[in-house]
Each structure stands twice: as structure tokens, then as C-alpha cells.
């Protein structure tokens, strides 16, 4: 239903919108790269950032 009434001949506007969508795709790729690089940080970093004791926050 969403596709109903679509124009058939893309013009200059359509090219610009397409370029904007490609920019969005690149932003998604950049986000994924960042997410993966953060995930591969060591277990020690994860424990360091979440370690909590009764007495006080403790630093490794």
C-alpha cells in the first residue's frame, strides 16, 4: 500500500534523495564498525568499568 502512487521517472530531486540515503547507509556502516570495535575490547575493560564493591568503587 505504501508503494501506491509512486512516480515512475526519477528526476534531480530523486537523485539528491538517493544520495542522502546513501549517506545514511554509510552512517549505519560507521555505527556498526564502532559497535564491533567496542565489543572486541577486553574482558578486563568490561570488568574494570562495572566492578562495584560494598565499600567503594574499586579500580583495577
Amino acid at each position: 500500500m505504501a508503494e501506491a502512487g509512486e512516480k515512475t521517472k526519477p528526476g534531480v530531486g530523486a537523485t539528491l534523495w538517493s544520495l542522502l540515503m546513501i549517506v545514511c547507509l554509510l552512517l549505519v556502516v560507521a555505527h556498526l564498525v564502532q559497535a564491533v570495535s567496542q565489543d572486541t575490547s577486553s574482558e578486563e575493560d568490561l570488568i574494570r568499568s562495572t566492578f562495584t564493591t560494598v565499600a567503594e568503587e574499586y579500580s583495577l
Partner: protein
Amino acid sequence: MAAKKTFGWRKQDGIRLAVIAWFVTCWWIGADRATIDLQPFLTAAWPDAQTFEELDGDSYRVLGGEDEVLGYVTTGTASGYGGPLTMAISMTLDGVVESVAVVEHRETPSFFRTVVDSRFLAQLAGKTNQDPIVLGEDVDGYSGATYTSLGMTQSVHRAARGIATDFLELEVPPVKRRIVFGLPEIVLILLFTIAVSRRRIKGKLSKVLRWTTLLGGLVFLGFLFNSPFVLAHINMVLIGYWPEWQTHIFWYILIIGLLLFKATDEWNVYCYDFCPFGALQEIAATIGGAKPKKLRWSKVLLWAQRLLTVAAISLALIYRNPGLSSYEIFGTAFALEGSNFQFALLAIILLSSLFLYRPWCRHLCPLHKNATEGLFDNSRRIARTAWQKLAKKPSLA
């Protein structure tokens, strides 16, 4: 003739099979990843210990000078929103949880970071074997990331009970099997019911009902509960992380409801009727008068969307982390959580929505039919044909 058309080999079937084979390979690579190393936690929790005696895979007896037992360390695992969380705890001989830390998690990164930054974990350190350690009883949940705080609490609860009963022989309060069924689950059932009923109605009432579910989804699934359907849900199913039904009824209603609807109807009930981010874009479209437009390089954009989806699912399978590659900007829109890239993306999409009809759904969303239909349509078609054949088969009795 019809059967031949349905089961006949199509050009796309090769791509479909290749993608499935690739997912299986990714799953296999992910299964081979290393296990948890507790050493950093052990040395942080017991800096004066002499020895850590391994009792089983993830439990240790902590020994001081002259082999004096100082306490125990173990881990507990429970489900968060996007995947499981594993926490380590250290417990003294009198049953006090001295320290806690997350040693591994597969939670959606934005939810995880929000809860950790809120100092939620400080509530868990200091609990004893006599405490229930239950969210909503002696632990306050973190609004906007309830499932993450629930997963952390349950992990500590399990670990604490494990040490108290297995090693210290201390008494623990009886476990109350709490079934979490509240407003989010009721709203979700209502949304499904209205959306399904609406399909049998035509005319103005159907439109009114559609806007009712859209706005309901926006307010409840978006802003209030921040629990939209995300790629992480599909990843969890593919990886095999099935959360406890007692605490994740919402998850099961969503997944089973969508699968059932997908299997029996062409209609994508979630996307079109109550996706909160879809609603946000439709409101913008109404304000700006946006219409569906055919973009240039539409095939390239379509295949880029599909490739992105395959890449995101592959990363989740390889890293055994359902939430890792869930790149949607729903949390960014409804809870202001996410990376800088996601905030930039959100701004572009919301502005574009004034002029383009649902740009996120049509060109980027991994859950939209554009991204997944090539993959799942065939199975649906085969299932439906098989069902129809079965239904037509005369009874043997």
C-alpha cells in the same frame, strides 16, 4: 500447475540458499569463541588472596594465608533485552555479596551503558543470602532499561544462591516464581488484536483504527516502554538465546505473534500498524505532505539494504551478541540513547520524513519487507501450500 510454480526453482533461490549457508557458517564461527576469563575479577575482588581454587567451570574458593578460606566467587547468567548477561560475584563466609561485575554481556549496548552509568550495580553489592535480590522488591529497576536491570538482578540472585546453598550451606529465602505480566503485555495484545481486526474492516473506520494503533505503538512501545521490535529479537532466535518465559512474556508475544502473522498473511502487521518509529515518520509525512517517491538507483538502494541486514545478522552470529549489530535508531528516538552516528541518522531521517514517505523503513530498516522478503517469502509460500494441501487431503478414517 500451481504446485509446479510454487515449488519450482527460481533464480532467487540460489541467493537465498547462499545467504542461509553463510548464516550457518557465521553461527558455527561464533560457537567456537572463547569462554569467560574470570581472572581479572578474582584479583580485583580479593587482592590479598593467596590462591583461587577452581571448583568447577566458573566457581572458585578463595584462600588466604595458611589456606584459610576467605570466600567464594561464581557467576550467574540471565536474559536482558537484547541477549544474556553474565555477572560475577564474590561472597564472604557470612553470606554477604562483597563485589559484583559484569564479566560478559550480549545486551544492546545503549541499554547496557545507560544502566551501568546509573550506578544501578551499587544496589546489588552488599546484598546477603537472606535478601530476596528481586527487582521490584529489594532492588529498584532502571526506568527505560527494565530488562537490562532485571537481567543483572537475576544474574546476581542466581550466583548468590549458588554460593550460599552449594558451598556455604546457608539458608536462602524461597524462590517466588514471579510471572511478569503487566501493562506492556496487555498493550501489545491489544495492538495485535486491533490490527488484526482492522484487516477485516474497510473504509474510514479501518483508517481510524490504524491511526489508533500507530499512536498507541508510538506512545506505549516507543516513549513509555521503549520496547520496539528490533533486529536483536531475530538475532536472539537465530543464536538460540531464548529468555525465561516467566519474565519475558512480552518478547514471546511479539515474536510468536509476528511469526504467526507472517506465516498466515502477507500483511506486515507490525510495520504498518503499530511500529512506533513508523508512526513517527507517518506523523512527519502528514505534516510535510510526504509521498512515496521512486528514487534513482532504487535497485542499488534495495540491495544495499539487504546486504546491510545480512551483514548485521552475520556480526550478531559471529560475536554471539544479538544486540551488537541492532543498528536501528529506535532507542535513539525514544530514549535518546545511541552513538553519534545514530543521532546524525535520526536527524536526517526525521527531516527527510517530511518529504519522503517512511525513508527509514523503505531504505534502511533491517525489519522491513524490502530487507527480508527475499529470504522468508519462500518458506512462507511453502508452508502455506503444504498447509493448504494438508487441509484438502481427505481423512483416512
